[in-house]
């Protein structure tokens, strides 16, 4: 099928999804022990989107992510070790401990970056696409945003300009059913938010966000189209946030039957089933074990790394000479 991932790409997606899941579960466990700092927004159940949507991109392509970006970081090629070190505020973190888990960036990989103002990733990615068009580069920009961000005013402004100027950008709507605690049907009168794309003259497709191959195909088609200079597109990937909004979420508003139904379609299981006939269950279990070991090693190493020393940031000083 057109735009399908190769087996090697599919295996890599499977591996990265396990890296992300293990990262989330470790963070959840350490939070319970009181060993994390600040809120952490886990993406359990949403791994297929972040990992598969970014799998066909190059380092020169840009991705703008959200406050729930772990799958986007790993998908875009960041190693798990500097991400873990960043989450624990160490000098060895992607941003030397200055950013924290919501704002991770690695410009060398085109990840710029997490963004914890809901909706802000939409104009951010659009601006990078504008830059690509002004300079005539063939790189594309990808905006990952959620159903909550889709309700912001800036979403309309940015998508209108992206479509108006045929900017090389793909909007990936990670529809996880909640804006913090509020269900999507309490935020919008429509179920399929991507029908709004038609209002901008932009193509869109709805996919099963728990199916990495479906995500890859739909996003890949939009990426190719954008790279050819034919303008933006949107993919709405339906999924479900299995954990709370953040580690500080007290819960009580997600229905048990919904959680059970979506767990039965866990993207890790979907990815496993898609590959088992091709490469065998034993091989997949080995890959899974290696991913778990990689994450364990990253935590061990990061947690023994030093904290940064404080230095004033003089570049933003109020006076033009040192006071």
């Amino acid at each position, binding site marked *: 099928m057109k735009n399908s991932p190769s087996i090697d790409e599919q295996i890599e997606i499977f591996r990265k999804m396990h890296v992300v899941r293990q990262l989330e579960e470790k963070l959840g466990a350490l939070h319970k022990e009181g060993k994390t700092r600040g809120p952490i927004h886990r993406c359990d159940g949403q791994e297929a989107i972040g990992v598969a949507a970014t799998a066909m991109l190059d380092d020169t392509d*840009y991705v*703008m992510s959200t406050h729930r970006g772990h799958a986007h970081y790993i998908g875009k090629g960041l190693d798990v070790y500097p991400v873990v070190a960043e989450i624990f505020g160490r000098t060895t973190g992607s*941003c*030397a401990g*200055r*950013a924290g888990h919501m*704002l991770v*960036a*690695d*410009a*060398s990989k085109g990840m*710029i*970056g997490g*963004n914890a*103002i809901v909706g*802000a990733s*939409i*104009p*951010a*990615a*659009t*601006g*990078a696409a*504008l*830059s*690509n*068009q*002004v*300079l005539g*580069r063939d790189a594309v920009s990808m905006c990952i945003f959620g159903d909550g961000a889709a309700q912001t*005013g*800036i979403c309309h*402004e*940015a998508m*209108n*300009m992206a479509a*108006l*100027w045929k900017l090389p950008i793909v909007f990936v709507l990670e529809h996880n059913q909640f804006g913090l605690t509020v269900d999507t049907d309490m935020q919008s009168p429509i179920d399929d938010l991507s029908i709004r794309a038609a209002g901008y003259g932009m193509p869109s497709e709805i996919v099963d966000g728990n199916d990495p191959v479906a995500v890859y195909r739909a996003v890949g088609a939009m990426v190719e189209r954008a790279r050819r200079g034919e303008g933006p597109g949107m993919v709405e990937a339906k999924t479900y946030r299995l954990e709370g909004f953040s580690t500080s979420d007290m819960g009580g508003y997600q229905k048990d039957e919904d959680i059970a139904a979506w767990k039965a379609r866990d993207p890790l299981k979907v990815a496993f089933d898609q590959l088992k006939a091709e490469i065998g269950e034993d091989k997949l279990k080995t890959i899974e074990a290696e991913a778990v070991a990689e994450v364990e090693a990253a935590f061990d190493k990061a947690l023994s790394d030093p904290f940064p020393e404080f230095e004033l*940031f003089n*570049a*933003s*000083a*109020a*006076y*033009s*000479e040192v*006071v």
Partner: protein
Amino acid sequence: MALMRYAEALNAALREEMTRDPSVFLFGEDIGRYGGVFKVTRGLQEEFGFNRVRDTPISEQAMTAMAVTAAMTGTRPVLEIMYADFMPLTLDALVNQASIYEYIWNGQVKMPFVLRTQGGGGAGAAAQHSKSLDSMVAHIPGIKVVAPSTPADAKGLLKSAIRDDQPVVFLEHKLLYNMRGEVPEGDDVLVPLGAASVTREGTDVSIFATSRMVHESLKAADALAERGISAEVVDLRSLKPLDLNAIKKSIAKTNNAVVVNEGWNFCGYAAEISATIMDFCFDDLDAPVARVTMPDMPIPYSEPLEMAVLPNAEKIVAASLQTLA
């Protein structure tokens, strides 16, 4: 030297920097085909094409956020926000985006963009098109703020702002666009950011002013001279980073300070300059610092009402006399 209007000087700066550096591009409302509502970008779309001089929809929030990431990814955008009164729409992009990334991403990105806007009262444009919100942007760490008061500074500071690797908010004044002045010629004649200018030397009182208030302060200095008082007028020009040495040097000479700014009084830019003077020059002061600002109220429309709220030469004279009393 060439005699130019303030708007023409800005236009020349844009043309020269776009010619010099192909990564410089402009976007904003009405700036292309029409040449900008204040005519600052006249002729530039014809010369450089739509790709580099873009008319935009009315979308200030997204435009500013887009300038931030365009700047991080290899271009030098110059964004025009038509009125300073629209600046509140740009604030997330400035406060939560542009100002943080160089630091929190540990130097991985630079942020070379300029946000040009114009403010100020006196044109009968009423409460939503007359404000000076200098302190609102100067408050944000990591954002530079510039306010030229002459055609020469308009050109030289805009060229420096475009070449700077940090975000610069460039505050023009609607009543200065037609002002004529001598402008030095040459593509590389820059006015550095962070340097004030002593517009008139004096020995009795220092008047620190911004934008159009520099000209009101010069009129006030003439009136004070008739009373035998020698006022020094310092054009701060670079609101941030601030030229603290120029302030210290002037107060060491005059021992008296008046601060003039068109923004609101409470938590305003003049309040910050006053506090800075207290922090660094207290021992040199003979009297408390005086402020001449806009009262804390909306700007009215009717001419006598608008004139009543705007700072002017008469109010600057009165404040100076009170300081020296």
